[in-house]
């Protein structure tokens, strides 16, 4: 199983490597959305600092929405998804390789860029650290719920608008937890309980969502 996972992961990364700079598009999109907000709100330091965390989270959601529809689409089109489903062994190596490669290519670059963007919004170092912490705990949940949405809308027409409709309501708890964490930290209040909730949510999502994903992908193929 582990060997299969390694092979699949290598395969995925190789495909993305050959596609060249495709991974850059969501990253640049993320950057652009974030830098649009000062124009829309105001360039006043206090306003920007207050809304920085929210803006960064929303921009991350939108950039995920850009790239998520492609998650299983190409595999469905060239038939390899059907092959993986037909094989008697578990679908889990495929799912985990897919998700991990996606995280490496699309989410981690965004996370690496975040401290720089936060500086543009005059966030203090402590808040940036907390923001990054919540992003690290929250983005696996975003990815897992997003992949669930991608699997659900796999056979649908015009799937990207539909994907937003499916996953955004489910993102609300993560947004609430993460952003309140940042707000509390700015007021020097304890945030341990919130981080624990977020981590617990993350663990439950990692444990349960792949199971649902497996069944839904099988429906999508047959």
């Amino acid at each position, binding site marked *: 199983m582990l060997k299969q996972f390694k092979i699949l992961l290598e395969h995925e990364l190789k495909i993305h490597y050959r596609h060249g700079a495709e991974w850059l598009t969501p990253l640049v999109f993320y950057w652009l959305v974030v830098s649009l907000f000062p124009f829309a709100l105001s360039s006043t330091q206090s306003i920007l600092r207050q809304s920085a965390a929210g803006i960064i989270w929303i921009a991350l959601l939108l950039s995920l929405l850009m790239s998520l529809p492609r998650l299983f689409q190409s595999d469905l089109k060239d038939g390899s998804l059907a092959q993986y489903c037909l094989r008697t062994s578990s679908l889990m190596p495929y799912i985990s390789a897919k998700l991990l490669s996606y995280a490496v290519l699309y989410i981690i670059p965004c996370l690496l860029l975040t401290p720089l963007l936060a500086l543009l919004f005059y966030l203090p170092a402590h808040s940036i650290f907390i923001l990054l912490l919540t992003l690290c705990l929250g983005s696996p949940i975003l990815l897992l719920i997003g992949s669930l949405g991608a699997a*659900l*809308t796999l*056979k*649908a027409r015009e799937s990207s608008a539909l994907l937003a409709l499916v996953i955004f*309501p489910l993102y609300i708890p993560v947004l609430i937890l993460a952003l309140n964490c940042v707000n509390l930290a700015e007021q020097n209040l304890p945030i341990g309980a919130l981080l624990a909730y977020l981590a617990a949510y993350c663990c439950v999502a990692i444990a349960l969502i792949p199971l649902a994903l497996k069944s839904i992908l099988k*429906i999508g193929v*047959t």
Partner: protein
Amino acid sequence: MQRLTRYFLVPQQCYRFITDWSPWLTGAFLLTLGYGLIAGLCFAPADYQQGDGFRIIYVHVPSALLAMGIYTIMTTTALISLVFRIKLATLVMQISAPIGASFTFLALITGSLWGKPMWGTWWIWDARLTSVLILFFLYLAFIAVRAAISDPWARDRIAAWMAIIGFINIPIIHYSVLWWNTLHQGATLTVFNPSIAPSMLYPLLSMIIAFALFYLILLCQRLCADILYQERKAAWVQEILHELT
């Protein structure tokens, strides 16, 4: 028990059962609705705090209850259709979605019509209101996904999964919003008095029953039509069609 299962598994029996009982349903609906409206609007005393404005309760609470109740029914039938592959459960699930969405819409509209005179705004980001709004989005997502998939087999399975995933998330969303809200603005106005006078309560109960009956009536109407379409090649359907013309 055996008779009951026969009613729900054999389409013809199910059709007969529904058509036999639907006049009674309609009668009971009109009766409870009439009593609820007349007693609620004319005879129930005005509330000592909210005056006559409280009368919106007679449409608001039933639609909010039904909005949640129908989602529960959808999830139950989704589970049944995934596990036992009963066609009838799938039909009930798919028919319930637009009806539930319209009840949720009603709960939102009547809620904001109630909120304007009582709180002074059409909308506050109160935990309950926000949860109902998200419930409305869940209904819409369910309907949109169903509409966008053309293969009927996959559509029913995917829709069932969507209902279940939404149902699991409802309490998570509700508690997170509740928690978020208490952090921001403290306790909101409590609208409901803990004790409610019988002359106010009976019309409310009657309206709740009327709303539930209306859901059942709509469900039966559409179920009948869909059963006929599903069994369109069977002899008994042809007979019924001859009777109708």
